[in-house]
C-alpha cells in the first residue's frame, strides 16, 4: 500500500469517515467540538464536527443528525461499524468546545462550548467508547487532522505551536 492518501475535509455540522492512507480534517473549531472515533488496528476513523449539544430542543421539523452531539456520535459509530470497525476497539479523541466570547448575560445558550463538551463526553460514555486524549475549552480556535495509520491527532491553533496527541 504505497498509495498517497488524500485529506477528507469535514465541514460545520458535518461528518465523514476514512481508512488509511487517507486522513481526515476539520477547520476552525470554536465552540464546536470535533470528535474523532477510530479503530486503531483496522485503521478506520471517523470525524464529526458538531455545533450544538442536544437535538431534543431543536425547533426544526427534521433533525439534521450531523449537527448535534447526541445524534452525530451514535450515527458516526454506526457508520464505522458498517465499514468493519469493531465496537469494543473503538476509541475517541476530542478537541474544541472553546468559549470564544465572554457574554454578560447568563443565558445557557452562551455556555455553548462547555455544554458541547459535556454532551460529547456523556454520549461517548453511554456508548462505552474511552476518550484517549482531549484538548478542549479555553478561548482559542482549533484546526484538527487525524491520521488513522498512526492514530495521531494534530491540532493547530493561531499563534501557537502545533501539538500532536
Amino acid at each position, binding site marked *: 500500500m504505497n498509495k498517497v492518501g488524500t485529506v477528507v475535509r469535514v465541514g*460545520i455540522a458535518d461528518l465523514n469517515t476514512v481508512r488509511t492512507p487517507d486522513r481526515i480534517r476539520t477547520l*476552525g473549531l470554536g*465552540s464546536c467540538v470535533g470528535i474523532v472515533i477510530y479503530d486503531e488496528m483496522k485503521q478506520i476513523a471517523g470525524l464529526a464536527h458538531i455545533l450544538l449539544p442536544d437535538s431534543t430542543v431543536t425547533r426544526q421539523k427534521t433533525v439534521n443528525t450531523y449537527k448535534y452531539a447526541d445524534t452525530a456520535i451514535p450515527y458516526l459509530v454506526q457508520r464505522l461499524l458498517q465499514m468493519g470497525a469493531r465496537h469494543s476497539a473503538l476509541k475517541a479523541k476530542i478537541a474544541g468546545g*472553546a468559549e470564544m466570547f465572554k457574554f454578560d448575560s447568563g443565558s445557557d445558550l452562551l455556555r455553548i462550548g462547555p455544554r458541547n463538551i459535556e454532551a460529547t463526553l456523556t454520549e461517548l460514555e453511554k456508548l462505552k467508547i474511552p476518550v484517549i486524549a482531549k484538548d478542549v475549552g479555553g478561548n482559542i480556535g482549533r484546526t484538527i487532522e487525524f491520521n488513522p495509520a498512526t492514530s495521531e491527532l494534530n491540532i493547530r491553533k493561531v499563534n501557537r505551536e502545533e501539538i500532536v496527541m
Partner: protein
Amino acid sequence: MKYKSLSSFQFDVLREVGNIGAGNAVTALSQLLNLKIEMAIPSVNVVSFDEMMELIGGPEKKVVAILFRIYGEAPSNVFFVLSVEEAELLIRTMTNNPTYEFKENISKDSLEFSVLEEVGNIVTGSYISALSDFTHLHLQPSVPHLGIDMAAAVLTYGLIDISQASDYAIVIDSKVNSQGTSDVLEGNFFLLPNPGSLQIIFSALGIQENE
C-alpha cells in the same frame, strides 16, 4: 419562514436594510478616522454555514471580529469583521502611532483591545440605530465582544441561535473601504437575523410574506 422561498423583492428589501445600516456606520467611521470611506452595495445571501466561512476568506483565516448581539423585537447578531492588517491600521490611526504592530495574544485590558471595542461600539451602534429607525423596531445592542481567531471559530457564535432552527443563514454583507490613501481599510458587516426576526422585520416594513 423558509429562507429559500424569499422573493427577489424581499431580497431587495434586505439589501436596503443593509444599505441603511452600513451607510450610517460608514459616516460614523469616516468622522472617527477622518478618512473618506466608501461602501459597496450590500449583498444578501442565503448560505450554508460552510459557505458563510468562504465569504470571508475561508474557515482558517485569522480575523478580528467584533460581535454584538441585538436584543429587543428582532433578535439578531451583528459582526464587524476586519482582517488583522485592517485592525492594525485602525489602531495606528486611532492612537496616532504609525509604527504600531499587532502583538500576539493581546490582553483584555490593553489599549488596542479597548480601541477596537470602542470603534466597534461607535460603528456598529450607528448601524443598529439606523436599522431601528428604519424599521421602527426596538433594537438593543449588547456590549461589544471582541474575538481574534480563525474565522470559523469566531463566526459560529453568531450562528448558534440560527442553527437551532435552520441549516442556513441569511447574511446581509456590507463592505466598506477607505480610498485615496495608500492603506486600504476594508471591513465587512454581517447582519444575521434570527429565524423569527426576518418575518418581524418584513412586517415592520409593511411587507407581506408572499409579496
